[in-house]
Structures are given as C-alpha cells and as structure tokens.
C-alpha cells in the first residue's frame, strides 16, 4: 500500500510539474504577447499621430497653395479692373468708346471671359433706361461687342450691380450661370465707377469663368480618393468632384441628409470664413477628415480638403496588420522554442536522475556482489581440518570474477572463475554463475556434473556470448580426496611437497557449448597442503609500461613462501598481493584480481574404539544393528537419549542402503564400521551396490499437512538431524557413507 501511495504521489507530482510547466510556458507567451502588443499599439498610436500631423500639414499646404492660386487669379482680375477704372471714367463723355475699352480689358486679362459696364438708369438719355456696353471673348478667340442692357436683362436689379453700388467698392458675386452673355458658369467682379463729382454712376462687371476654378480645385489630390471642395459665400458649391452638384446646389442642401450632424457645424464654420479641421462620418460609416480654410480676399469663398480615414491610415493599417501577423508567427515560434527547451531540460533532468540512480544501483550491485563472496575469515574457526583465505580486487566498480566455497556433508565445495569482460554485464553473469554453483552443488557432489549443469544453463540463450572460465573443486574433508573439474581456468597450484601445478585436462570454458562433456579429475591432497587458486588478473596484472606480472613471478613467489613455510592461506595471499601491488605500482588496475587459498589441515588422531558389523541387505536384521549401536554407545558412555538418536540415525542410513543400493531380489552385504577418537564418533557404511548418493536428495518440508506429506525422504532427514555430518563418497566401486557425531557435544547434551 505504501508503495502504491508513493507511486500515486509520484504520478501526481509529475502531472503537477507538467501543468506548472504548461502554465509557466503560457505565462511567458502571454507576457511576451502583451509586451509586443503594447509596443505595437504605442508604435501604432505614434505613427498615427505622425501621419495625422503629416496629413494636416499637407492639407493645409494644399489649402494654402490653392487659395493662393485662386487669390492670384482674383487679384489679377481685381487689379486689371481697378487699373482700367479711370480709363472708363475719363471716357464717360464718349459712350461709344466704352465697349472698346471693355474689349481692351479682355485682351489684357486672359482670365476674363466677358466685361460689361452697367450705367445707372437713364444716365444717357439717348440710350433709354438701360445701357450696358458688353464685350465677350468668343470660343474662336475673337471678341464680340454688344449692348446688352434691356428690359429682359435688367442689370439694375442684378446682384453684382446692386451690391457693388451699396458697398461702393469691389464686390465678387455668387457664382451663377450667365444665360445672356457668356453662357457658362461665371462669377462677376463688380467695381463701381464715379463721375467727376464722385457720384457712383456705373458698375463694371468683369466675368470670370469658373472652369479654371474647377481645374485648379480638382487638380492634384493629396490622396487618390481625397477631394477638394469649394463653396461660395452663400454656400453654393463651386467646385467638387461631382459635376452635377456644381452651382446646382448649396452645401447645406447637399449635406442635409447626412446622419452625422457635425457636418452642420462644419458648414457654419466654413460659411463664416473660419479655418480648421474636423472629422465627419459619411453614411457608409467611413470617417473623413475635413480640413478647411477661407480663400483670402474679398470673395468669401471657402475651401476644404476631404480625405478618408481609411485612406490616410491605409499604409499604417497594412503595416500594422503585417506586424500582427509577424507577431503571431513570432509568438508561435517562441512557444515552440520554450516547449522544446522545457522538454530538453526535462530530458536532461531525467538523464541526470537516471545517471545518478544508475550510479547508485552500480554501488548497490557492487555491495550485493561483495556480499555474495565469502568475506569472513577464517570462515570455519571451529574446524581443525581446513583453513581458507580469499582476496578480490575488482578492476571496475563491479567485477566479473567469482569465487565461492562452503562445506556440505563434510565436503568443501569451492570454485573460482573469471567471466569474460568487465563491469556490469560480467558481474551479472558472475552472480548467475555463483547462484548456479550453489544450486548445482546443493544436491550434487561430482564437480564435472556441477560444471555441466552450470554450462547447460549459461549456454542456453547466451546471446551476448559471455563465457566463464571456471574451476570447481570438491575436497572430501575426512579423506583429503580432491575431485575437480577445470573449465578452461588457470590451473591452481598445490603448495605442499614443493610447488606444483594441478594437472588439468583442457575443458572449454562454460557458456560456449551446451553439450560439452566435462571431464572430472582426482587427486589426493595431503595434510598441510595449500591449494592456491587465482584468476588471470594476477598473472596479467600490468605495470605502467604494460609489462605483465606473469606466471613465473607467481611461481617464484609461491616457491619463496613454501621455502619460508608460509603456505598458510592468509600469509600466502597477503604476500602475493603485496608482490603484485609493488609490481603494478601506480598503474591503473587492468583486470579483476582474485585469489583463493585453501589449506587442508587435517590432523590424524589416535583411534580409541573400532568395531565393525556386516549385515545382509535384509531389514529384518535391523535388531542386530541396534544391538551393535547400543554396545558402542555404552562403551562411549552415551546417555539413553543420545543412544536412541544414534540408533535412529544408523537404522535410517542402513535401511536406506539396503533398500536402494541393491536391485530388488539381489543379495548383497552392508558393512558398518564404527570408529571413535577423542573428538568424534564416526560410522562408515559401505556397500558394493549401484552408485547411490543418499545426500543428493532434496530436503523434505516438515511443515506440510498430513495429506500433503510424502511417505519417503524422512530417513535421510532424520540422519542429518541426529548426526553432526553425513558424507558420501564412491570409492573403488563402493558406496561409502560416513556419519559423524562430536563426542563432547554428545556428552554435554
């Protein structure tokens, strides 16, 4: 449950972290967006202001320029008329010459289309009530003369005549269409004339065509769709892009139906000769900037430049839109980069964490591996017959060398091996090999069969082609008989009567061929002899210049140790270790180095008691065995309880031999020998039957219920329980089973 909760927390943490990352990424993007947007808006506003000022400036220049142009034309007309006034006044006595003067004025002033001189009523009695000599510039460039005053053309009531007379000065009329004279859009400049007494007697009417006005006004716009507008003093539209409105309507009428009422203020301002600017929304909802100013002089005309908001800011909007697009792309890119960076960062963190955890695991692996090796020396302080010492120095954190030993049924099982390669993969194979060694030797005392079992398992599915050189030895402690099987490992040295290599047949290392037949070998190890085992890390230890320690040095050192009588395992290995350390010096250790020394230290003891009994393989003779055992126990002074235990052990062991060694129906003998020295009682049960190792049976499970309890297997279990050791050997075609019981312990219990 704890683990599950932890896992949940881990999950929650991960999702929390992820959402935090998502949120912070989002926050960064939003901040960036706000920053960029704000900058863009500020920039836009500034640009807009700049553009507005620019437009204002351009519009005002435009207004000023047009105004000036118009003014110049007007002044030209005004000046020409004023300069000719005295000529008229001097010729009042000669009314016939007056039209000629008019024509002269036209000739000198190209902007004039016609010129007339309207006299007050009945000024020349001979001409009646109306007298207006008039000259006109005709389409062919010539001039026409006429007297146009009549009842139908009653100039005396014309605006130009009346206003000029009232004002007693130059006066510009409202634009009008002259039907009588020029037959075109005209505007008249009127100037009163005086006789010698200073009385106003006539008015000059100089007609100006408005065609040029339209040209001036409509030419050269500041924007393609912007336009100029000119209105007269009374609001009459004098020039605008819509021809049909010109002189047909006034500005109030033209704008009366517009929804935006601010146009009325604009009209008033223009009519009252003010200058300024305003914004008018047209009926399409489009904003228009209107800049207006009066034309200087006496005309009272006003001019306006109208530009659509859309057009003014079109460029800016385009730029803004592009910027927005660019910004979005930028933000998307930013988001992508952040996401990638975060992912990269996460991966880096994970990789780091994995690395740290791998290092931790390697350390743990190293500890586990070291824990697998026997590490308490001396391993069997209670035993007088064996002394063992082992040393291992892994080249990397975890090593590929293996050594192991343990005692089962008075046999020392030991092995030393070297897994190909170094580091973690080797150490894994090493761990597997060590486990296999323990499993195989747990129920098998023949070294070649132990090696065969290990080989079969390792070869099976060995895809990484790792192999192990392995030496497995089984030392029978009561007899000193060493059975061994060498699978391609360095031959151990025997240090007893001198130093000699243990003869080894050339078996291949395990892990290469699953069906290889491993050959067993056998030798007798004499007391005080040391078996020295090592891996090639010893012979191939390298100094700084890659020189190898070599077998000869190993032999020399071992010889020295033997001569100095220092073949005790601890002494021997420490000596060797010192020698190799001195040789290697500061060079980096190139391979795992493992050494194992086993000294057989059995001492023969004086036999105190020796009795023997031979029984046929018939369980009905068991009572004879009981009597035999009782006798021995009595001789050794055993109590009742121990005697019963000895009886039980012997009966079980002998019955086992009787039942299994000989095939059913065949007869054979079972020989029982009892020997005791000061230390222990030993029973040796010998038969000539088929090879049968009762110690190789698996242990029974004493916790099973009655239903699950197998009938067999109890006998050997009881023997193990009653005796200190049980030991099987096949010697010279005979099964030899040895049971031992320590005397001291027996007496005590």
């Amino acid at each position, binding site marked *: 449950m704890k683990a599950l909760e932890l896992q949940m927390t881990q999950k929650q943490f991960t999702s929390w972290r992820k959402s935090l990352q998502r949120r912070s990424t989002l926050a960064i993007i939003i901040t960036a967006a706000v920053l960029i947007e704000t900058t863009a808006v500020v920039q836009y506003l500034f640009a807009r202001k700049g553009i507005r000022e620019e437009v204002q400036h351009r519009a005002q220049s435009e207004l000023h320029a047009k105004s000036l142009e118009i003014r110049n034309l007007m002044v030209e007309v005004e000046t020409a008329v004023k300069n000719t006034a005295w000529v008229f006044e001097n010729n009042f006595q000669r009314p016939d010459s007056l039209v000629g003067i008019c024509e002269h004025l036209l000739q000198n002033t190209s902007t004039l289309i016609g010129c007339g001189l309207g006299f007050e009523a009945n000024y020349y009695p001979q001409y009646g009530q109306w007298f207006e000599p008039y000259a006109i510039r005709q389409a062919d460039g010539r001039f026409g003369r006429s007297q146009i005053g009549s009842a139908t053309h009653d100039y005396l009531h014309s605006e130009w005549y009346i206003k000029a007379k009232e004002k007693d000065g130059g006066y510009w009329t409202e634009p009008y269409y002259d039907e009588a004279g020029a037959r075109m859009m005209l505007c008249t400049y009127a100037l009163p004339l005086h006789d010698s007494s200073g009385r106003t007697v006539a008015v000059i009417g100089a007609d100006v065509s408005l065609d040029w006005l339209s040209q001036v006004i409509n030419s050269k716009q500041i924007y393609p769709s912007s336009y100029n507008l000119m209105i007269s003093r009374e609001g009459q539209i004098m020039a605008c892009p819509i021809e049909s409105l010109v002189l047909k309507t006034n500005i109030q009428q033209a704008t009366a139906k517009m929804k935006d009422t601010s146009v009325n203020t604009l009209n008033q301002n223009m009519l009252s000769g003010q200058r300024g600017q305003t914004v008018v929304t047209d009926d399409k909802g489009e904003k228009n900037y209107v800049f207006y100013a009066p034309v200087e002089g006496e005309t009272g005309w006003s001019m306006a430049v109208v530009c659509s908001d859309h057009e003014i800011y079109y460029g800016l909007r385009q730029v803004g839109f592009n910027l927005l697009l660019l910004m979005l792309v930028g933000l998307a890119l930013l988001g992508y980069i952040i996401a990638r960076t975060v992912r990269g960062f996460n991966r880096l963190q994970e990789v780091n964490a994995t690395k740290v955890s791998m290092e931790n695991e390697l350390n743990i692996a190293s500890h586990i591996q070291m824990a697998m090796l026997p590490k308490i020396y001396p391993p069997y302080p209670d035993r007088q017959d064996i002394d063992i010492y082992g040393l291992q120095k892994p080249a990397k954190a975890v090593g590929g060398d293996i050594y192991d030993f343990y005692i089962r049924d008075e046999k020392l099982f030991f092995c030393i091996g070297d897994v190909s390669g170094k580091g973690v993969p080797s150490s894994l194979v090493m761990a597997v090999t060590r486990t296999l060694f323990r499993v195989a030797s747990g129920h098998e005392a023949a070294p070649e069969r132990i090696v065969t079992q290990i080989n079969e398992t390792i070869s099976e599915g060995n895809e990484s082609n790792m192999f192990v050189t392995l030496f497995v030895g089984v030392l029978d402690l009561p007899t000193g008989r060493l059975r061994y099987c060498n699978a391609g490992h360095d031959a151990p040295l025997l240090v007893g009567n001198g130093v000699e290599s243990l003869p080894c047949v050339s078996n291949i290392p395990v892990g290469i061929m699953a069906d290889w037949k491993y050959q067993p070998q056998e030798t007798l190890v004499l007391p005080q002899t040391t078996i020295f085992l090592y891996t090639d890390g010893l012979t191939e230890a390298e100094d700084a210049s890659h020189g190898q320690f070599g077998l000869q040095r190993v032999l020399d050192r071992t010889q020295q140790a033997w001569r100095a009588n220092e073949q005790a395992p601890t002494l021997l290995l420490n000596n060797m270790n010192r020698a190799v350390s001195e040789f290697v010096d500061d060079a980096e250790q190139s391979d795992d180095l493992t050494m194992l020394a086993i000294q057989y230290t059995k001492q023969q003891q004086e036999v105190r008691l020796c009795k023997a009994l031979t029984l046929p393989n018939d*369980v009905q003779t068991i009572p004879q065995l009981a009597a035999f055992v009782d006798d021995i126990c009595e001789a050794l002074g055993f109590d009742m*309880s121990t005697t019963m235990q000895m*009886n039980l052990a012997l009966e079980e062991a002998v019955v086992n031999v009787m039942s299994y060694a000989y095939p059913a129906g065949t007869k054979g003998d079972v020989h029982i020998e009892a020997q005791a020295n000061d230390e222990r009682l030993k029973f040796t049960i010998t038969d000539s039957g088929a090879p049968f190792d009762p110690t190789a049976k698996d242990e029974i499970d004493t916790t099973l219920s*009655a239903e699950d309890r197998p009938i067999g297997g109890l006998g050997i279990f009881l023997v193990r329980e009653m005796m200190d050791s049980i030991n099987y050997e096949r010697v010279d075609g005979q099964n030899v089973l040895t049971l031992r019981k320590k005397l001291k312990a027996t007496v005590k219990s």
Partner: protein
Amino acid sequence: MKTTIQEQDGNLVAIFEGRLDTAAAPQCEQDLKPLNDCAGHDIVLDCTALDYISSSGLRLFLGVLKNAKPKGSHVFITGMNADLRNVFTMTGFINLFEFK
C-alpha cells in the same frame, strides 16, 4: 514389538510395546489393519510402552492418520516419552497429531 487394538469408551485404542523399527514395521502394519474401519470412532495411539520409533514407524502413524481424517475420526497420541516426542518435533509430526 507388540501391537494390541482395543475398544475403550467408544475409541479404538492401539497399544504399542517395544521397538517399532523397520524390522518390526511390517507386522505392526498388519496389526493396525482394524483401525482402517474406524468410522464413528476416534483413534488413540497409546505409546506409553513404546521404546523406539524409526521412520518406518512414523510412516505407519501417518498412514493411520491419512485413513482416519477423511472419515472424521480424530487420532490422539498418549503417553509418549520425551525422546520419541523429540523425534516427532524434529520431523514436524507433532503438528499432525493431537496429543493427550
């Protein structure tokens, strides 16, 4: 070795005397046959006079138990000395039987 079967208070009582070793086991097995028909009775194995038991004897005891259990009969052991009890403890048989 002597094995006697008696009926006492509705129980089947097997009384063992002497050494129940491998040699004695076959005869003892014959003697215990009546216990096969134990339905409705509990079985008491009286070991007061039993001096010795080996694994062959243990197998006979286990046989009695395996036969009696499915029939609902209990198997009790009485009067066992400390040494034999030690053997029962060692082998785990002490967990299989009920002791009186």
